[in-house]
């Protein structure tokens, strides 16, 4: 049985109101931890069907036969009617990448050396796991859409521990390499997070400039994501620009895949244009509700769950990026947030944020010394309006979809 046959079954059940998604994924992983080494391979196939009869239904299975059996069962439960989306159309069936998947590079020793060097021997690498994955996806729907595409991605997880006397601190980092492995950047992140908190020094600056490392800026941007992929309007976003006029926020998933998980073509969407809230991100369901067109933001985290509305590759953008060194040199008195020590809290409803971080005190553009733990909190709207500059060192972090952060300078922030 094939996706086409599943389509025929669904057409009989819900004429013009169905979609079939098919996925084949393979991955290879090398995980190292001290003397332990694990090599894994994984091959996964799955199909999912969505249909409206007129209630919204979803079924997923590992093969087409099982899915064909699951569909009538999913239709049994009584549900209230839902709105059928406006299906995308088109055909694109490029040849998928084939051949065996190469194992990811084993870079444990190299990263361990870099972490040690970066931390002057204070930190050591505990664990590294790198996964090389390749996925072929296909979507067909009741409007005749039949598109497929393949993606490859290298992701991983690393942990390090910093020690000073009897004190210890652990650092964990998720990473994603779109090109060559960027080991120095990963080593710096691990080293800073594992060693700076060991200083146990509190902030000497109570109010001043706040320089955010790209990883911290990315966490802030991820916290803002519901603003761009939600339906509601918040009072603080309706008072004009939310960012300075030279900064924009863009979502552009074209670098990852030509289509989203619903078969809509990927596109660049400017969600904050020169400081002001711009377009919203839509999947098929939200587009239908809003009377708009999907922007290609139906994201499938797994074939076992239906697509959800979410950013795919969100990042800050500016016409005038400043090199990170210049940005550091411009700080008169403030803190550099090198890493978060707790998840950044962004409460969009009540316009509040709280960031607990470790970093370095900066005076007259020079590092004054480490700050073990500091906290910045206040109104999110104020924080965003006080962004003064954005650096050119953009990096993407998996959250879980890639979010691009660059060194960000904010003025007039209070710390405790």
């Amino acid at each position, binding site marked *: 049985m094939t996706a086409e046959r599943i389509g025929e079954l669904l057409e009989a059940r819900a004429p013009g109101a169905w979609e079939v998604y098919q996925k084949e994924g393979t991955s290879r992983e090398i995980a190292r931890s001290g003397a332990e080494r694990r090599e894994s*391979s994984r091959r996964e196939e799955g199909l999912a069907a969505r249909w409206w009869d007129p209630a919204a*239904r979803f079924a997923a299975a590992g093969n087409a036969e099982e899915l064909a059996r699951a569909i009538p069962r999913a239709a*049994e439960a009584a549900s209230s009617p839902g709105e059928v989306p406006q299906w995308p159309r088109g055909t694109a069936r490029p040849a998928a990448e084939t051949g065996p998947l190469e194992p990811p590079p084993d870079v444990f020793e190299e990263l361990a050396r870099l972490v040690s060097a970066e931390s002057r021997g204070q930190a050591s690498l505990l664990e590294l796991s790198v996964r090389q994955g390749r996925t072929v996806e296909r979507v067909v729907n009741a409007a005749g859409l039949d598109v497929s595409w393949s993606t490859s991605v290298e992701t991983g997880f690393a942990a390090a521990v910093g020690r000073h006397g009897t004190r210890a601190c652990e650092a964990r980092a998720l990473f994603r390499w779109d090109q060559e492995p960027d080991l120095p950047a990963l080593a710096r992140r691990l080293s800073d997070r594992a060693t700076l908190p060991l200083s146990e020094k509190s902030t000497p600056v109570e109010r001043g400039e706040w320089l955010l490392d790209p990883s911290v800026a990315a966490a802030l941007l991820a916290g803002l994501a519901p603003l761009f992929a939600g339906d509601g309007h918040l009072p603080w976003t309706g008072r004009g620009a939310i960012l300075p006029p030279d900064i924009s926020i863009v979502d552009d998933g074209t670098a990852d895949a030509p289509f989203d998980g619903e078969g809509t073509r990927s596109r660049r969407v400017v969600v904050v244009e020169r400081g002001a809230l711009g377009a919203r991100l839509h999947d098929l369901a939200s587009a239908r509700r809003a009377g708009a067109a999907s922007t290609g933001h139906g994201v499938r985290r797994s074939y076992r769950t239906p697509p959800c509305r979410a950013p795919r590759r969100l990042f800050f953008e500016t016409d005038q990026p400043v090199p990170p060194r210049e940005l550091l040199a411009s700080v008169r008195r403030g803190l550099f947030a090198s890493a978060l020590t707790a998840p950044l809290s962004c409460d969009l409803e009540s316009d509040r944020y709280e960031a607990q971080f470790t970093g370095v005190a900066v005076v007259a553009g020079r590092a004054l010394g480490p700050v073990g733990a500091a906290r910045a909190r206040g109104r999110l709207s104020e924080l965003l309006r006080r962004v003064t500059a954005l650096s050119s060192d953009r990096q993407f972090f998996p959250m879980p979809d890639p979010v691009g952060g660059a060194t960000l300078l904010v003025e007039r922030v209070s710390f405790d």
Partner: protein
Amino acid sequence: MPLDPATVARWIEPLAKEPGEMADVLVERRREAVLLWRDGEVVETRLASTEALAARWQRGGQQRLAAVSRADESGLREALRELQVTLGRTSLPIREGKALSEEEEEPHPSVDRWRKRLAALLARNAPRHKLRWTLVEVARDVFPARGAPVSHTRRLFSLEGSFIAASRRGDETRTFSFHGPESDSLAEELRVWLVRAAEPREAPMTCPEGEVDAVLAGGCAAVLFHEILSHPLEAGAISPLSGLADARLAVAELEVRDDATRLDLFGGYECDDEGVRPRPVKLLDGGRLAARLTNRACAARMGREASNGHGRRAEPADPPLPRGSNLVVAVGSATREEMARRLGQGLWIEDFESGSVELSSGSFRLRFPRARRVRRGRLADELGPGTLAGEILPALKRIETGLGRQAHIYRSLGWCARGGQVVAVQGSAPDVLIRGLAVRSLA
């Protein structure tokens, strides 16, 4: 067990011929039903039926794992071939294996029955809501290279989301989370939880910051012990508890165990994902540090005779890690009123939304959505959200003697993530008085 055990044994035994080698095959069949509820109506129905199989080889610190998303003989051949090729062993010939018979499976369990029950329960107790109901049936077969194959099935029920509660300060949105293994008595338990969650409350004040004494009531102390004992005592974990075997860490009254055999709790199981029947493991016995949670490889490294049955995998493609299951704290003799009186001034906390621990430093953090201030031994103001933080060893020392006389199952605790692997957990605990934790407001 649709795979023929004799065939699996014949194919897998050669992988564990050498001394110190172990190998196994894990097969999983998972059926999941999800109903999305909005204000008394099911707005979406989701069903998923998946299967997977993984073959694993291990010797010392070296491990190889191959997983495929099918659970028939073809899948078994594919996974074993992959393993044999990477190990440089003679591999099985490429041949189409027997596919599973196309017999009609049982319908997805209990969906319609639960839909009717939930409709009635929610209409009475929380008519305005956005909730997600999930019933997962997970059947796992483990075929170890040496020993008999074992099978077990669990049906896990979850209801999570938010609802609007009518409160003295007007409508307010409250989060709700309830997890339990499916049973006949679960509906009544859920009703009690819903009623309690929907109780009218005063407008919360901002939580005070600084050092605070607290009573962890309603079973939520299980979350604290899950973070400060279960995780650090997973074999191989390096934490402030490492090297403190048999050390007196807390009051003699405190007895904490991890008990996977408690099948009435969400984290229970009949055998772990390496085919080992679990044993209740005392983590803290009379206030002294006792045993660790082990899987087969860790037990072998520690020179123990056998694993105590805590090798758990989130999915077949994941390696088995020593993980906690159900955290159970033995009861004391104090009444609720005595606990409040002994607390004097402080916080009364009955809910934790989440918890985390950093093993190297031993610092932990627990996030609570609300609390009550206790003044002169009496419950006073309603307080908003905050975090409790501390370090493992000082926190254990500051637990006071005189635990509550009644154990409460804490159904809000359901899942625990470590290294990306999410497994079912739960706990049961009496009220616990702990002094000197750091509290921070999240309002």
